């Protein structure tokens, strides 16, 4: 291969280092006016009255919008259309927008916000999942299971409890993973404007222009064909720009009313309150193990703190258990999950979407299992790895698995065998693994259309233009697409012009989330490029007087042996022969084998795998943790551009480490006179701690190539999976260093100190949640695994015994 696998400057690299990448807030259009949103100061309240007269009269104000202007709800998932662009009567978290002011400049709009008079009737805020379970009233939403329980799920893939009870060893552990937020350095921004022909265009820092497009049509009650959404390059996404945002809808409405461009850029505090980040999850793992270290069954219960709205929460809830089966052989599995509403900013997907939390628990529990069984944690895992081309208990089809090589690589490079459990007190090594999706098997809106489309246009100059809805969020999706097309056509990737993330110009790609772009848009790009390649081959073959299959494409030339044409010459011949040259390609994932209700979350065309070893140094006097080095190996299938792939792995390590050690999206209750409002403890970049260049350890990064037949050139994802093993590997390293278990994230010095004090007193050397509350999980859906006679469907309860 000429392009794939070669380290290269990304195709948009020059723009990024010259400041020429145009982010949403860099747009300034003639006659542009500015929007600011008024947000609720109450965590939970009803709006009794809202008077905008003074704001409207303020000099320089053009428009004030309120909930009355937005009668239609929206939401990213079809089952949770539970948000209003501006809340008409019920506010559910501090920061819920209630009005929008459009003025000549930001300053004037901000002044006018103070002139809006809102009378609220405060309701009791629900702060925690325990409160949400205990207090069905006041209800945050009128829908959901009951009270403040948004969603309950229960599945039984084989009788796990029976298998666990019959095991040589039973492990029961409770873990907590605190919520945290994406913190992209670019704050969300958008500009809405009417085109010369009266249609609406929205430029927005979004990862999902297709879903924003759909939501605008719904909320504005306009035909979607009259709306164009352009995703500007995102200044970091990490999942934080995958939801439809209130400000996008309000800016669009204002542009329609005023007939002039309307811009908004959220400030940093607003970004913290918009959130949609990592769900706080409490988890209980009950796992059975044979004396030689094989898993017999696992029963996982999760309790998910959803915040004030649905967002992606139903999917996130499924993901707190969907992928526990794809790393290690697990013959029986029971999974119960609950998501509750609380009066805090809504949670949603952050890098790893719902899976880092249970991965944290699972990988620490395996460390405990290894210790009890007196086995090496790496050997324990290697002996129980899931098999390639296999089905899991919950009916996921696994293709390639490079996890064995990942584990062996980090074990060797970290000198694990000579150093684990052998380092001096205060220093330790920890190992953990993870797995992630390469795109979800099913789209958010179920339909039979492709999940990704690519269109190519060939100009007679030899220039190739690629059109695709995929969104460049910094991860390098334009570069992946250009690389794939240029590999097929034998040209230089810098010859490919990418037009991406524009619903008015590009075929639909569902967006940059769930690590789907390389695999899905990549396959669509291959298909389109191959169509063009065969036309070019046919035309060139005529000219060179050989059979088309003997024509080769490389280095910008189309050749047969020593006879060759330039790529542009071949294009001219093909255009003369076939007419204007273009081609489309599309991608739909293979059908998932699971047929039960709920089988839609978890299937993927391929799974990526990662193993990680963390070295930790813990000061026993202060609990201070330093991380000198991290070794990581990621099974990427095939590397498209090693420079970018390494960047994705290392960025994931950074983000996982930052979550493990310090990041937390946490709230405090204000006093009763301030309606006990739940406010963010640290909505600023200074106080919300994240790792800087000074704390970042040395990273040893290895890409493992085990090509997957479903990936383009065998490629799998690399943007999210490598985050997953980092937090549990940190926890396991701290145990190796000082012998204390911190069963919750973040792992801060005070927790380490508390655990060390307990250890000194002879108590269990552990800090973490002590109990798992009673959650009214329903009767599980019974889905027998394939090896117990199942066919992928649920069985009726009275038939269940017969099947097993």
């Amino acid at each position, binding site marked *: 291969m000429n392009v794939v696998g070669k380290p290269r400057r990304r195709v948009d690299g020059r723009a*990024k*280092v010259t*400041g020429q990448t145009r982010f949403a807030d860099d747009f300034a259009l003639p006659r542009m006016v500015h929007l600011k949103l008024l947000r609720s100061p109450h965590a939970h309240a009803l709006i009794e009255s809202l008077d905008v007269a003074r704001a409207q009269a303020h000099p320089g104000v053009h428009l004030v919008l309120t909930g009355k202007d937005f009668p239609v709800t929206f939401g990213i998932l079809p089952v949770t259309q539970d948000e209003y662009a501006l809340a008409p009567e019920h506010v559910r978290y501090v920061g819920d927008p209630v009005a929008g002011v459009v003025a000549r400049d930001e300053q004037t709009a901000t002044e006018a916000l103070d002139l809006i008079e809102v009378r609220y009737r405060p309701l009791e805020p629900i702060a925690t999942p325990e409160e949400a379970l205990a207090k069905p009233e006041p209800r945050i939403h009128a829908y959901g299971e009951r009270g403040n329980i948004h969603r309950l799920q229960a599945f039984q893939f084989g009788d796990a409890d029976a298998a666990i009870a019959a095991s040589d060893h039973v492990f029961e552990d409770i873990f907590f993973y605190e919520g945290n937020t994406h913190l992209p350095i670019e704050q969300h921004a958008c500009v809405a404007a009417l085109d010369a022909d009266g249609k609406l265009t929205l430029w927005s820092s979004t990862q999902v222009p297709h879903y924003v497009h759909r939501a605008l049509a719904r909320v504005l009650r306009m035909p979607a064909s009259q709306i164009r959404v352009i995703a500007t390059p995102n200044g970091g996404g990490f999942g934080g720009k995958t939801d439809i945002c209130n400000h996008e809808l309000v800016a669009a409405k204002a542009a329609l009313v005023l007939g002039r461009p309307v811009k908004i850029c959220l400030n940093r505090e607003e970004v913290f309150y918009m959130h949609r980040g990592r769900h706080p999850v409490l988890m209980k793992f009950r796992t059975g193990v044979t004396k030689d270290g094989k898993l017999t069954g696992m029963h996982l219960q999760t309790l998910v703190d959803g915040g004030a709205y649905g967002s992606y929460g139903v999917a996130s809830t499924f993901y707190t258990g969907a992928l526990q089966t794809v790393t290690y052989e697990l013959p029986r599995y029971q999974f119960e999950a609950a998501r509750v509403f609380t009066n805090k900013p809504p949670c949603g997907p952050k890098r790893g979407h719902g899976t880092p939390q249970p991965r944290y628990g699972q990988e620490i529990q395996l460390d405990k299992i290894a210790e009890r069984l007196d086995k090496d944690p790496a050997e324990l895992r290697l002996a129980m790895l899931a098999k390639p081309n296999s089905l899991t208990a919950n009916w996921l089809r696994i293709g390639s698995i490079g996890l064995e090589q990942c584990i062996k690589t980090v074990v060797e490079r970290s000198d694990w065998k000579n150093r684990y459990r052998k380092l001096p007190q205060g220093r330790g090594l920890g190992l953990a693994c993870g797995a992630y999706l390469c795109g979800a098997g099913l789209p958010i809106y179920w339909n039979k259309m492709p999940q990704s489309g690519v269109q190519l246009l060939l100009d007679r100059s030899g220039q190739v233009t690629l059109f695709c809805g995929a969104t460049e969020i910094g991860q390098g999706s334009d570069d992946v697409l250009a690389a794939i097309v240029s590999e097929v056509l034998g040209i230089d990737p810098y010859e490919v012009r990418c037009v991406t993330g524009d619903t008015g110009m590009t075929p639909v790609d569902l967006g940059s989330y769930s690590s789907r772009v390389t695999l899905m848009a990549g396959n669509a790009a291959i298909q389109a490029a191959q169509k063009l390649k065969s036309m070019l081959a046919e035309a060139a073959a005529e000219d060179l007087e050989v059979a088309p299959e003997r024509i080769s494409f490389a280095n910008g030339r189309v050749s047969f042996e020593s006879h060759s044409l330039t790529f542009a010459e071949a294009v001219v011949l093909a255009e003369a022969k076939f007419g204007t040259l273009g081609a489309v390609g599309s991608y739909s994932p293979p059908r998932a084998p699971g047929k039960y209700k709920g089988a839609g979350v978890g299937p993927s065309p391929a799974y990526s795998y990662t193993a990680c070893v963390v070295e930790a140094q813990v000061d026993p006097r202060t609990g201070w943790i330093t991380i000198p080095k991290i070794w990581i190996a990621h099974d990427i299938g095939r590397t498209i551009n090693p*420079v970018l792939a*390494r*960047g994705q792995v290392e960025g994931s390590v950074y983000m996982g480490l930052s979550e493990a050690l310090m990041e937390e999206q946490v709230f405090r209750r204000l006093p009763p006179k301030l309606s006990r409002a739940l406010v963010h403890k640290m909505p*600023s*970049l200074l106080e919300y701690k994240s790792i800087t*260049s000074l704390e970042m350890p040395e990273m040893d990064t290895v890409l493992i190539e085990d090509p997957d037949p479903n990936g383009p050139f065998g490629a799998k994802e690399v943007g999210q999976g490598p985050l997953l093993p980092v937090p549990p590997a940190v926890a396991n390293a701290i145990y190796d260093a000082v012998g204390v278990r911190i069963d919750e994230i973040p792992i801060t010095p005070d927790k380490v100190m508390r655990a060390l004090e307990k250890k000194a007193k002879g108590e269990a050397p552990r800090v973490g949640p002590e109990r798992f509350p009673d959650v009214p999980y329903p009767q599980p859906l019974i889905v027998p695994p394939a090896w117990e006679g199942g066919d992928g469907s649920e069985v009726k309860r009275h038939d269940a015994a017969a099947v097993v």
Partner: protein
Amino acid sequence: MRHAQLALSVNGEAVETSVAPYKTLLEVLREDLGLTGTKHGCELGECGACAVLIDGEPQLSCLVLALECEAREIETVEGMARGAQLHPLQAAFADLGAAQCGYCTPGILLTAKALLAREPRPTPSRIKEAISGNLCRCTGYQQIVEAIEEGARRMDDERRR
């Protein structure tokens, strides 16, 4: 509020403009002079995205009033390239993956440029210290540190030539 006259040098060119006196240098660069290469992530001096050089020193342009810059030399990312040719630091950043989303990149480039003006061949730990006020959420910093080292090498090579 009445606008005030401001004369300063931006990327080696004399600029005269009239600005609202409360505006920060960041706002004047982006909104009045159209130099949107300088980014903002917090406007509170916390993230480093808005770093520019004022008389050669890295400063957070969100914390500097534009009027304080009267007669001073400002350098932004737009001033780094020589004609169409990238500055060696820019080229190294593009080649080595130091810019992912690219949002923190202008601030880090200028911070690095100021560092290399003081210390032409800094160690990795000196580089990490110099950019510790610039937050990057994409890279994990390692490729940035390597690109600054590589930029320093390329600048050295240029000087030798």
